[in-house]
């Protein structure tokens, strides 16, 4: 008898503009000790399932279901008593889920006091040991601390401890690691895996990341716009997906183990309007295999909601026309930067401690039309480096040469024209009060490229360049989707016909399907316009897909740099190795055991001098790493690694991505 049995769950929210049908007839079962993955892009309604189970939907939410049982009891009445006692919850953003004015210890102990009736001291003691079990080293100190004193990973461990306080039988996880860096994510996933095996707690994992679901869950449910489109065992469904949407998701996913060989296949179009759900297949408008019959209601037959699933099994997901990925000769240098340094928070009037050096003596060069991928975890200084290179941020020291000419701190208007930037957050990159036309026209007039009617034609050309209809000229940002806004950001950057573009996490805020389209666009633009990119991202999979050369950054310095293929294969810098092995890749079930884990995270204080990675390095050789700055070792064509480990030993490393 399954622990959690949801049959025919439907949910709709009342809004000013009519009812939004967030979930339509969702059914899933989780056996005792089992783990079900619930996958879907933003707007699919996956998080509403968690709130529906807990009975925490706000007013205006209408819930109907045939069966909503937890261990035989109807959740619609029982949820109140089960919350925190037999069902634990972990929300996405640990920083927001913890009360800023209460200590961590008390927040973990609270369920024990409430449900187990423990006295305050006993509960706090239990909480402390629970934190220890979650892998927190100085648990006593953390118990007394407040949320703002803890790092992201530490906070999530505390939230998990809170959820597990009363040993619940079911753990609901809503995007548990999305807000964390990939190495810290790996530690949390290990912890969840250990908990599942040691305590036999069953899990419902809600996520948009197929790799994580593949690693943790037995069963998988794919949600599209509120409807279950596919359901079944995880490994089987991910290796041979049957519903077109699942196949589209997998085709659009940039994979670090495949590098640049495969061109991504984006899913065209956008989400359907949840206010008028279509009786037929709601994926039809975006499905390459759609026929008229798809308009008829599609039941969920043997785990898939598509009557043509068997038929189209063999046909490959269509990949848009392959841009001529001509192999270009080694490009001559366009941008040359030496010894760039910048520190923040120097000795103010009251705080005496020295400033932290965000960028510490970085040198790099980018050739004309070349894409240098810059990858590293949050706080490693990659965004700062991006702004230093564009002279948007004053550097403490270091030189920049662009196209042979030195660029002073106050860059000339000419340099401004030839070097532009694309931002991460689509909502913040466009001025909400300006139409697309005004946004694109300003750089044209500013740099005297075009004006009047000629500028209008130029704006239409730019829109066509980023594959948007000319009618978008009169639109305001709030009338466009995230992906479309990002395209306008790119178009605006290209308006001044630059030679060099800094893409700062340009696709991180987008859903996988939209991300693929933008990545393809960037690749095509580079080929057609010969624009060089400094592509900054924390997602090594995306960087592996688009970059010609990759530089890996850790605490303000580049620890490894070289052609993409060379960096992705041994020899690795230990940090690169850890990064690659931490990335949850779909279908790499066997790799689980050989994973390499780091201690602590970016904010754990480094030792003074010596290798900056020593304090977290799994391959630390001894105090040589703590005292001596590591030499830069050369491998093959311009593949450099700064590490004390001898070259041969580095070369002999096993691949972190053995498939």
């Amino acid at each position, binding site marked *: 008898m399954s622990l959690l049995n949801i049959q025919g769950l439907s949910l709709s929210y009342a809004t*000013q503009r009519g009812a939004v049908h967030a979930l339509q007839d969702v059914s899933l079962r989780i056996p005792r000790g089992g783990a079900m993955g619930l996958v879907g892009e933003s707007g699919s309604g996956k998080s509403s399932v968690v709130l529906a189970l807990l009975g925490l939907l706000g007013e205006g939410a209408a819930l109907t279901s045939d069966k909503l049982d937890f261990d035989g009891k109807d959740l619609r009445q029982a949820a109140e008593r089960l919350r925190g006692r037999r069902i634990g919850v972990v929300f996405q953003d640990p920083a927001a889920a913890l009360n800023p004015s209460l200590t961590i210890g008390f927040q973990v102990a609270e369920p024990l006091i409430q449900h187990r009736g423990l006295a305050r001291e006993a509960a706090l003691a239990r909480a402390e040991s629970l934190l220890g079990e979650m892998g927190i080293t100085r648990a006593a100190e953390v118990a007394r601390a407040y949320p703002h004193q803890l790092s992201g990973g530490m906070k999530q461990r505390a939230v998990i401890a809170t959820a597990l306080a009363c040993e619940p039988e079911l753990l609901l996880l809503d995007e548990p690691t999305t807000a964390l860096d990939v190495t810290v994510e790996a530690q949390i996933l290990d912890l969840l895996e250990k908990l599942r095996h040691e305590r036999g707690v069953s899990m419902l994992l809600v996520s948009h990341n197929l790799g994580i679901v593949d690693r943790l869950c037995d069963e998988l449910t794919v949600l599209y716009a509120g409807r279950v489109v596919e359901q079944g065992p995880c490994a089987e469904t991910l290796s041979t997906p049957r519903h077109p949407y699942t196949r589209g998701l997998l085709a659009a996913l940039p994979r670090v183990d495949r590098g640049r060989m495969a061109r991504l296949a984006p899913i065209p179009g956008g989400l359907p309007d949840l206010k008028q759900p279509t009786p037929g297949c709601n994926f039809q408008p975006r499905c390459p295999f759609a026929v008229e019959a798809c308009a008829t209601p599609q039941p969920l037959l043997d785990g898939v909601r598509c009557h043509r699933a068997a038929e189209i099994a063999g046909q490959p997901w269509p990949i848009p026309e392959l841009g001529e990925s001509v192999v270009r000769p080694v490009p001559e240098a366009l941008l040359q930067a030496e010894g760039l340094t910048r520190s923040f928070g120097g000795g103010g009037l009251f705080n005496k401690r020295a400033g932290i050096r965000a960028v510490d003596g970085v040198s790099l060069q980018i050739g004309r039309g070349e894409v240098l991928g810059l990858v590293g975890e949050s706080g490693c200084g990659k965004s700062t480096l991006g702004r230093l290179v*564009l002279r*948007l941020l004053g550097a403490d020291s270091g030189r920049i040469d662009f196209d042979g000419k030195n660029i002073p701190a106050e*860059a000339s*208007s000419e340099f*401004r024209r030839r*070097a*532009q*930037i694309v*931002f*991460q*957050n689509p909502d*913040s*990159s*466009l*001025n*909400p*009060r*300006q139409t697309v036309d005004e946004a694109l026209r*300003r*750089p044209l007039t*500013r*740099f005297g490229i075009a004006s009047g009617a000629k500028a209008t034609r130029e704006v239409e050309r730019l829109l066509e360049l980023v594959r948007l209809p000319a009618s978008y000229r009169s639109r305001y940002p709030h009338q466009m989707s995230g992906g479309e806004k990002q395209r306008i*950001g790119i178009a*605006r950057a290209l308006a*001044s016909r630059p030679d060099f573009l800094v893409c700062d996490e340009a696709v991180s805020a987008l859903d996988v399907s939209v991300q693929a389209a933008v990545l393809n666009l960037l690749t095509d633009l580079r080929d057609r316009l010969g624009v060089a990119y400094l592509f900054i991202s924390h997602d090594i999979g995306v960087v592996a897909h688009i970059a010609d050369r990759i530089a890996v950054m850790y605490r303000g310095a580049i620890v490894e740099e070289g052609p993409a293929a060379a960096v992705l294969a041994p020899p690795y810098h230990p940090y690169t190795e850890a990064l690659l092995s931490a990335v949850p890749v779909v279908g790499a079930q066997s790799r689980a055991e050989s994973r390499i884990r780091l201690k602590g995270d970016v904010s754990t204080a480094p030792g003074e001098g010596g290798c900056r990675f020593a304090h977290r390095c799994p391959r630390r050789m001894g105090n040589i790493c703590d005292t001596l700055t590591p030499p830069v070792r050369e491998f093959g064509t311009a593949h450099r690694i700064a590490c004390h480990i001898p070259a041969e030993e580095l070369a002999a490393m096993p691949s972190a991505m053995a498939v």
Partner: protein
Amino acid sequence: MNRIPRTLLVGGVIVGVICILAALGPWIAPFEPDAFNMRARLQPPSTTYWFGTDEFGRDVFSRVLAGAHHSLLMGFGATIISLVIGVPLGLIAAFRRGWTEEAIMRGVDLMISIPPVLLGLLILAVTEPGLLKTMLAVGLVYVPIMTRVARAVGLDLLAEDFVEAARARGEGGFHILAREILPNAWPPLIVETSLRVTFAILLGSALSFLGLGPQPPDSEWGLMIAESRPFISEAPWIGLAPGLCLCLLLIAVNVVGEGLRDLLDPRLRGRGH
């Protein structure tokens, strides 16, 4: 722009009616607002004198109509002055960090630490009383508060990426403030200003009440209440009439402020202050 909220409609209509009446005041007043009429002194409200007559036999209803545009001018004028001076100061303080910001904000701390009534009195004690001077005084009193609000809004907007994009285009400081910041700044500023109008009218009428408003024979609601003080027990309508009109105007302006907030900046609903 989402649907016009009900509060904005109701408030807007009332304020609109008052403004129209104020504008037409002198012409549509049933009696000559300043004319003496010794026989009809201190008459209670009646069909002929809707709001009764004052100590000189003048029709209170006509004087309320005639005085309306002074009160409105005082309130809205002062708010506009505080906007025109306060907003640029605030935006400059937000844009030019470092010592300019320090200088402006210390000045603001200083002016804010003086309670508004005293600041108004001091400014008015220096100059002869008069409607324009009172409006200027009240306007200056609210400049520091407006500067603070503008700086906060400015700082939020300067952190947005489209401002950095403008910098990346090498745009000058003036362009950024005028073309990128200001168009986005005015919705939250308008909401804040609409709340300030009530305080400005209140302070303006308080200063008139303390004896420093416009010149006779024309009058302002606050001044009419002040002048009615000696007759309060015997002829309360002289003071009640302008008082109730003042309350109605202030409530309406407040309701418009709330409505504007819901319409323009739903995010601000949380920070009602």
